[in-house]
């Protein structure tokens, strides 16, 4: 994949990218031959990495009708005698994945089973293993986040780290975090702010403010979902079951904080850049037509680590921690700083605070 053509790569993504370009196939990406050829599994992206389904128009239709007719098509493939063992297993996995239930309502065994299936499916096709977790929330944990407006310089390191950590679509340059550049002395005037700048920072006479999903305590986004594909976990994380989401985008319309992103097309992540340390509700590979968002890096936070953005921030503007732990830094900030939240009048109770030094 070429490094230079995409605006995205102008943002420093670190050294892993170099490896990616040197290890990729030499045929050039414009022809697209490489993409379709099964012989170079590195070129497979996004959904293809999960399900080995070449989605040309015909199979797309087949898939659609198959699932509408409760999977007649999938049954025939999985029962077919001619297909080899591996492809049979794959078909079996696809079939079970297509008709599994909502993650939130699964029992522990079912969760384990689907996680294993997904990991196995990935292995079957790429020969590589991923570490897919279904770790649940811990007791007495409620995650919160604080953002220091006086420290943020608009470097966007958090954005880079987030994109890498969470396997976001490189094609559409999807970013969970937006950094708003605001003029000094005008207060929080979002109307005149710029959240899409490409110039040297910090710019004279400006300050910076980041937004992302605020993990509201009373989230309007989960209430409207017709199929309960998005919900709030015990530890306060607002998550999405990507496989259950039908893509109606109602939650997106309901979020007052621009916290959600939609996969308008097939997400693509170069194989070499995939973060293999994944969580079912977090950074596993997504398919097209589903919603996604910041999960406070559920794969990290539940393992006791800070989210990638917090870790990447060079100025220490970002503070993350357990709100229920009286000794946590976040509690210290909330108790000792003047904090505020955005759009408090809406009653969404974001677990995301801003403060100044």
């Amino acid at each position, binding site marked *: 994949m070429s490094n230079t053509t995409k605006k995205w790569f102008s943002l420093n993504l670190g050294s892993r990218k170099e490896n990616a370009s040197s290890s990729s196939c030499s045929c050039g990406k414009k022809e697209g031959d490489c993409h379709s050829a099964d012989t170079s599994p590195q070129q497979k992206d996004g959904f293809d990495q999960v399900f080995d389904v070449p989605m040309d128009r015909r199979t797309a239709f087949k898939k*659609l009708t198959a699932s509408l007719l409760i999977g007649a098509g999938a049954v025939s493939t999985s029962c077919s005698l001619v297909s080899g063992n591996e492809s049979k297993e794959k078909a079996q996995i696809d079939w079970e994945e297509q008709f599994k239930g909502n993650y939130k309502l699964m029992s522990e065994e079912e969760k384990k089973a689907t996680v294993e299936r997904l990991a196995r499916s990935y292995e079957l096709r790429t020969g590589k293993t991923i570490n897919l977790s279904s770790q649940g929330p811990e007791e007495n944990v409620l995650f919160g986040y604080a953002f220091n407006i006086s420290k943020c310089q608009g470097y966007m390191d958090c954005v880079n780290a987030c994109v890498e950590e969470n396997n976001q679509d490189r094609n559409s340059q999807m970013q969970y975090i937006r950094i708003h550049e605001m003029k000094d002395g005008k207060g929080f005037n979002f109307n005149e702010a710029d959240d899409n700048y490409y110039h040297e920072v910090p710019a004279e006479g400006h300050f910076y403010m980041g937004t992302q999903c605020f993990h509201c305590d009373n989230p*309007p986004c989960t209430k409207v979902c017709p*199929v309960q594909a998005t919900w709030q976990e015990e530890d306060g994380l607002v998550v999405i079951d990507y496989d259950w989401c*039908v*893509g109606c985008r109602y939650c997106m*319309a309901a979020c*007052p904080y621009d916290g959600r992103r*939609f996969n308008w097309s097939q997400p693509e992540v170069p194989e070499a850049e995939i973060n293999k340390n994944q969580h079912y509700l977090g950074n596993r590979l997504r398919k*097209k037509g*589903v919603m996604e968002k910041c999960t406070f890096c559920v794969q990290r936070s539940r393992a006791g680590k800070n989210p990638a953005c917090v870790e990447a921030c060079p100025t220490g503007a970002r503070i993350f921690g357990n709100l229920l732990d009286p000794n946590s830094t976040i509690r210290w900030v909330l108790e000792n700083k003047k904090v505020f939240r955005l759009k408090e009048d809406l009653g969404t109770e974001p677990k995301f605070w801003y403060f100044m030094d």
Partner: protein
Amino acid sequence: MFTVFISLVKDSLQAILHGSKKYHLWMAFLTFIMLIGMYCYTIQLEHGLSVTGMTDRVSWGLYISNFTFLVGVAAAAVILVMPTYVLKDIDFKQAVLIGEGLAVAALIMCLAFVVADMGGPSVLWHMLPGIGVFNFPDSMLTWDVIALNGYLFINISIPFYILFRHYQGKDALSKVYVPGALLSVLWAVGIHLVTAFLYQGLQARPFWNNALLGPRFLASAFAAGPALIILVLALIRYSSSFRIEDKTLKKIGIVVTVAAQINLIMLVSELFKEFYAPTHHSESAYYLFFGLHGKKALLPWIWTAISMNLIATLLLTFHKLRNNFKILYFACSLLFIAIWIEKGFGLIVPGFIPGPYGKIAEYTPTGIEIGVTLGIWALGAFVFTILAKTAIKIELGQLRYKKETVSKE
């Protein structure tokens, strides 16, 4: 009973397949448009919704606009059902079958538009109660699914019952269909209110989060729906021997007029609130009517809609003009288009502009989106033509159950 049904299906197939040259041309034309729509949809299936003009900033567009508008058209059939079935106003009798046919077609289009708008049509079974997980009663969308499908069922079953009886040469029993008709009246108001609540309930979008939205939906629906019915009835009058009296058209015209007037009053009230003492919540309205920061994609649309609306309402208000059929038809078409723009583009798109943080990103539908949309409209027209053709034949007595012929065969 069953044999009667089979023969009805056979006979109506006969009726559908035979017709004048014009009829065949019309159906071929619709089929052609539908095929184009399907082709566009396969492209969308393959590449995802990225082939539409929608983005993370404006995440609903043409599909949901049309859906919203058509719910109104479907609901409007009720305005005809009420007087005919319940108040026994005989004038409306023919109009009501057509109206319910129209409602069925509109509902089918609604469902098609919703499906077209889904990111994952292959997992839509998640929305089926029982098999999937239904977020009831929290999500307004689940309410809408129930309301729309229920309404579709009512609107299919009542006319079917009546036609089925007439087909056998019997009279329809009023104690069977009157309760159904009453229910459908309530239900029609329900589907439209619920659809309005879909938007009204979002505190994130101040443009929609306003108490007048629901009632205004109803008013505009009761103007646009019957306006369409008038036009369709006029067409049927000219193209078949089905007798529709002047009186009927005139009466529906009054309904349209009153609804259009109320709609205008509400529009004025809305504009007053937005512009007399504007807050930052008025920005969407500003964008819609005057443009914001140099972005004004919707300006030509909304001002066309408003002027059409004004002219149509004015024309309808004067009895002399309204009772002239040429002017009536003209006013009805104006009104229909005006409300289509207003309730579609003028309502859905500005809800997203400016975004939650003031970002202004404009929306323009793509060719593929327009293709799918036209295809679905053609589907609606197709369904309606079939329904109307059968219904008219039965009502005219040309389609009757013949016991002798069946037993002979």
